[in-house]
């Protein structure tokens, strides 16, 4: 690995893959979770129970299932996604979906009862109530996506299984760190680890700036 060119490249690829994954996960997590909160009752409780359970799903198992789906002989093999950044994005999106959903649920459901009733009493329809819930919890929702990104960027198993750690193509922080440790280049591994930590710290600062309260 040549410094600093490859480190910069890995940094940008890691940000691209994990940010895309967090945003992709939020495209279904936000509407599904807000809808579950809006509907309330059994649907809502069932939804959050499933999400909380899936949070504990082993990363390596998600990687394996997606590997089987995306491999040449798998049902989605025709898409030729295995060992591409896109496969890593899909894998990480699946991984962070329960986390983002649970966090959004926690944020939005806090005062949902009164807020929904208030909107309904003035004649707000489903779409308007959902819009209100999103708008009133914007910072919390953004914070949830950021935490999803943090989880994705620090993940190794899926990145390795679906990306393959191909230099200049699918190598990201975690796979590069693992590789450098195998090679005995601990100084480089530590440098990459510190950059990863720095990104985490910046994100925590962003969340604090947004005034998000868990």
């Amino acid at each position, binding site marked *: 690995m040549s410094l600093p060119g490859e480190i910069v490249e890995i940094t940008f690829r890691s940000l691209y893959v994990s940010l895309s994954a967090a945003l992709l996960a939020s495209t279904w997590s936000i509407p599904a979770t807000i809808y579950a909160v809006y509907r309330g009752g059994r649907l809502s409780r069932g939804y959050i129970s499933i999400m909380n359970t899936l949070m504990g799903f082993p990363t390596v198992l998600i990687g394996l299932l997606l590997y089987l789906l995306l491999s040449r002989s798998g049902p989605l093999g025709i898409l030729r996604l295995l060992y591409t950044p896109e496969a890593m994005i899909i894998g990480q999106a699946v991984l962070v979906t329960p986390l983002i959903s649970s966090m959004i649920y926690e944020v939005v459901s806090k*005062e949902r009862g009164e807020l929904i*009733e208030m909107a309904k*009493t003035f004649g707000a329809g489903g779409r308007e109530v959902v819009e209100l819930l999103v708008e009133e919890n914007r910072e919390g929702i953004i914070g949830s996506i950021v935490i999803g990104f943090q989880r994705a960027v620090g993940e190794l198993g899926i990145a390795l299984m679906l990306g393959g750690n191909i230099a200049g193509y699918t190598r990201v922080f975690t796979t590069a760190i693992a590789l450098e440790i195998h090679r005995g280049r601990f100084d480089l591994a530590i440098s990459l680890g510190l950059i990863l930590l720095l990104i985490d710290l910046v994100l925590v600062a962003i969340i604090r700036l947004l005034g998000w309260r868990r």
Partner: protein
Amino acid sequence: MIRLVRVSLGYNGRPILREIDLEIGRGITLVMGENGSGKTTLCKALSGLLPPLSGRILVRGRDIYREDVEKPVYIHDKPVILRRSVYENIAYGLRIRGESLERAVEIARIFGLEDILEEPAENLSAGYQKLVSILRGLAVEPEILVLDEPLNHLDRRYREKLLNHLRENYREKTLIIASHREEIRRIADTTLEIIDGKIK
């Protein structure tokens, strides 16, 4: 205006109020009762927010849970404040209903809040938040308004102002107030009391 036919109300199948037959007409109706007696439950049910366990709730002869009918506006005991300006909070109902937002400024002026309209409502004291919450309801001038403990958190000056405003403006409409405060009796045309799950 509002009619309850053998209505039982409660949560998770457990009734708090049982087999109520009641008619509420124009004017100001005060619903009294001790804490936990079911005042809020009754108010929410009348406003279309809590379906009855049994029976029917009719507004102008139409079932509010089965037919498309304009429901009463319900204002919570606990202030519901949006993370927006005071003006946006008061105007919320008007905006949803597609009505002129001028009324938000008018009602704020009546209660002396015109100078804080641009302030973030979440920074206000509990008393002002309560007032803003109530003004959101008053701004839309509903035919039927349901206020749940409207005087809580308000100081004496605003309690007086609110009671006077309600007395002057809701004689020809239907106003239902749930409260345990005796001072509301002076503006009420009718007083109902909830005792042991029944309305007397």
